[in-house]
């Protein structure tokens, strides 16, 4: 079965393009090769090196940024393809205070509280992923927290403290003054493990 299609005109190809993005609320633009990934665009052209590039083929999750609020792999997108859209990177998670300082976000604070990073390479991708994950599900169970970060690899922590940080971040979003347990989150488990 064939039906007729309105004839169209072929569009010209480009090897360079001016890319315009709103990054962390600020309009940014640069002319780049069309093969420039969004990750490289952020790092090389906009000097926003908080986004980390690990595997460069979508497996490790370190380069995760928010595209119009949803987490995506910035190494699997061409900057030219997302021109006109809004991006949030790790640099945009904290909130600028009236005195010019930046207050860390609840997820960032939770990572500090729970010792959820060691070398820190995966952390930008973890933080962006969890920020979006908690926006969708503000009260995750521990299993849902595991699912939330299942697309992000961490070679240091063994993930346990990151899962705890997800739960702690959910708590902080509900109550910014929620106290930390005296021994920290993992002390009891560690004591049991050592015994």
């Amino acid at each position, binding site marked *: 079965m064939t039906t007729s299609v309105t004839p169209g005109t072929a569009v010209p190809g480009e090897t360079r393009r001016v890319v315009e993005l709103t990054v962390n609320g600020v309009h940014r633009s640069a002319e780049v090769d069309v093969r420039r990934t969004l990750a490289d665009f952020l790092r090389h052209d906009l000097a926003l090196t908080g986004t980390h590039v690990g595997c460069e083929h979508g497996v490790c999750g370190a380069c995760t940024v928010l*595209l119009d609020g949803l*987490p995506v792999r910035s190494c699997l997108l061409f900057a030219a393809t997302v021109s006109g859209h809004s991006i949030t990177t790790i640099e945009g998670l904290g909130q600028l205070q009236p005195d010019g300082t930046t207050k860390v976000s609840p997820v960032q604070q939770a990572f500090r509280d729970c010792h959820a990073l060691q070398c820190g390479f995966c952390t930008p991708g973890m933080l962006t992923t969890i920020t979006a994950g908690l926006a969708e599900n503000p009260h995750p169970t521990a299993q849902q927290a595991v699912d939330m970060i299942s697309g992000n690899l961490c070679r240091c922590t063994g993930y346990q403290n990151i899962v705890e940080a997800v739960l702690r971040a959910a708590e902080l979003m509900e109550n910014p003054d929620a106290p930390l347990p005296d021994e920290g989150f993992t002390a009891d488990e560690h004591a049991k493990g050592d015994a």
Partner: protein
Amino acid sequence: MKPAPFRMYAPHTVAQAVATLAALEAEGQHAKVLAGGQSLVPVLAMRLAEPGHLVDINGVAGLDAIDVSSAGVRVGALVRHAELLRHAEANRVQPLLSQALNLVAHATIRNRGTTVGSLAHADPSGEMTAVLVLTGGSVTAVSVRGEREIPAAEFFVGPLESSLAADELALSAFFPAAPAGAGTAFVEMARRHGDYALSGVGAVVIPGPSRDEGAPTISVSCGFLSVSETPLVLDLSDAWAAGEDSVMAVVRAAIDPQDDIHASADYRRHITGILAVRAIREALARVREEQAA
């Protein structure tokens, strides 16, 4: 790990997109369509392919619709997996969609990857390829020569090879509705949640009228991924009537899994038999829930 240089084309209409593909085809150029890019960009990054031209359809209007009718669900070329997964009406009409989409990569990949794109990629380890064949769906392709509807059974030619012509754009996919009273399920086994499945099975069971006095008959069909070169569907009605051991034997004899770093062919064959039984049991449980409700 950077893609080789290419020229990028940014059509705004389907007519422009297919005219561009036709012009490149006429010049003998190697062009690929870029939608979500979640399979294509890794292929480019690893330089497994170096097409000189990418036709980016992300700016094409009208390709992001999910149309649901009692007949089934039509999914446009720019519908992201995550959008289809969240679409309650589509998943009421064909529950296999969300059952399988939950297992497609990770949530982050599903935010960008498109369902039609994963069909066009024709990866035999893709969940949605298996769902398209199991549901007897089709892909609508368009080129300057016109539109044509390609039945699922004719769409997948080999691993990573579809019957789309070089100048054709996959415009939409159609997943027929689940039959009345049917139960469906989708199960798979992967090394890590979200990774490529070692094996996966989708099941559709339809309770039917008695063939003989007192003996209820059930129609059972299963679709398989990661265990054959193209998505495979088996009618297991008779095997199921003969028992679970029979299902496992029939399945294991019908599939052709390969060895790789993740699992041996024998292991894949073994677990695929078990997964088929699990999928059928789960689908039957849904039928009973439905009947009880």
